[in-house]
């Protein structure tokens, strides 16, 4: 029964990456009320950054560093040229970011073609873990994701920048009256959230066939994770990520990916029915 630990480890690494994606999404939503439909494409851009560095012969690791930087800058540009004009217009931001997501996908097709591309495995060796042998790269994923999740929590809970961001989330007008530049907070946060998606895309690239549709495969579960976990606090996303990511990966292994989709969606509906604010959600006070 060596399968079980592998299954658990696999689903754990999936959960962590999902949390990375969802965290960017929830920070942006929680702070600005913007549902960023292009978040999946930020993931995509991160993955293709790695595809690019790999095919240019400089390998995976520079791509992993470059991805959050490039995607962060793309997020910054999107905020500056588009989103900032649409705050408080939820439907318009959905339409605008959806348009951006289509544009990014098509750009990727123009430059890289529609076919799936593979990245050379950066850490091909297996690690002997007693009972089982496990891919070193997946262990790296867990370590990297955990550090970035921890880093994000640290920023938000322990630094002045995070305190200001949480204050803007809780009560924007009061935060502004205390001298906090809310627009600057929005811009920084949008950039940071985008960079997280880019990093997650880069991390996942070597495990997937990279194609222009891959963003959606993470955007939807990340979105569900937010609905299930609640938007009020950052910790909600941990619970949501575990419920959605865990059940998704385990059921698709035991049965099929299709049945896991059905179960995950049903589960999300039930949770939202019972706790509309999400598992750890709190009401926003405007």
């Amino acid at each position: 029964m060596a399968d079980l630990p592998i299954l658990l480890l696999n689903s754990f690494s999936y959960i962590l990456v999902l949390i990375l994606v969802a965290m960017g999404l929830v920070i942006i939503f929680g702070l600005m009320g913007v549902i960023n439909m292009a978040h999946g494409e930020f993931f995509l851009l991160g993955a293709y950054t790695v595809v690019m560095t790999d095919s240019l012969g400089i390998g995976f690791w520079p791509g992993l560093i470059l991805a959050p930087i490039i995607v962060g800058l793309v997020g910054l540009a999107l905020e500056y040229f588009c989103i900032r004009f649409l705050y408080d217009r939820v439907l318009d931001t959905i339409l605008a970011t959806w348009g951006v997501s289509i544009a990014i996908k098509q750009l990727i097709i123009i430059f890289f073609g529609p076919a799936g591309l593979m990245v050379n495995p950066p850490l091909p060796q297996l690690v002997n873990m007693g009972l089982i042998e496990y891919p070193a790269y997946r262990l790296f994923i867990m370590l990297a994701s955990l550090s970035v999740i921890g880093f994000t929590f640290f920023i938000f809970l322990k630094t002045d920048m995070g305190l200001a961001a949480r204050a803007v989330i809780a009560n924007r007008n009061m935060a502004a009256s205390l001298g906090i530049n809310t627009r600057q907070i929005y811009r920084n946060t949008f950039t940071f959230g985008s960079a997280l998606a880019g990093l997650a895309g880069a991390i996942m690239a070597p495990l997937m066939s990279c194609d222009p549709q891959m963003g959606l495969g993470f955007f939807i579960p990340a979105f569900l994770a937010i609905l299930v976990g609640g938007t009020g606090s950052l910790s909600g996303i941990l619970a949501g990520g575990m419920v959605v990511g865990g059940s998704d990966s385990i059921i698709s292994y035991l049965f099929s990916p299709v049945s896991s989709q059905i179960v995950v969606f049903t589960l999300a509906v039930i949770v939202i029915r019972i706790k509309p604010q999400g598992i750890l959600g709190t009401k926003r006070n405007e």
Partner: protein
Amino acid sequence: MLNITNLHASYGGSRILQGVNLQVAQGQIMALMGRNGMGKTTLMRTIMGLLRPSSGHIIFDGKPIQGRQSYKISSDGIGYVPQGREIFGDFTVAENLRLGALKFDRKNRDIPEEIFDYFPILAQRQDQLAGSFSGGEQQMLAIARALVGRPKLLLLDEPSEGIQPSIVDEIGQILKKINSEAGLTILIVEQNVDMVLEIADNFSFMEKGIIVHNCPVQEIKADESIITGYISV
């Protein structure tokens, strides 16, 4: 210090401020009184930049501030304690206070000792969640949070609302003390007549979006019917 001329502002489609003229001199405590719905809170929000005036001027410290963004007005030196206090209930007392200092450079963000001299209760309970405080304690926190930003002018919107009378007295005394010791100018909207008679130097009365009467406190002490004429229904 604060000079408002012919200020107009609308909120939710209705014209609330219809030509407000108001002067607050350096170092004084000015009480702004009037019945509910006369535009007192709207005036405070407009001064603070939370509402854009449709016309008129707000000169603070010799500089026009109407239409500026709230965070800049805060940095100009106006502190704001809104109606309902609006403390951050999920944050600790220390975090609430620190928020008042975030507009300064990193090395100037320490909470001044005087704050805890004025409000000793905050010193002992810095790690407590602000939401667990009583109404009066939250009000003290909201005032302290504004003071951390070292304002030249403090706007207070109904600080006595929903607070037990003994604490209202205490808050009034603290405000008077800060005013006389630190020279802080205060514009206070208040319904509690006893409290403002105790602390205010001057009174302005608001009716239907304009200031209808100004007078020093002595005039009201001589004839309290002036107040009842403007605030009782």
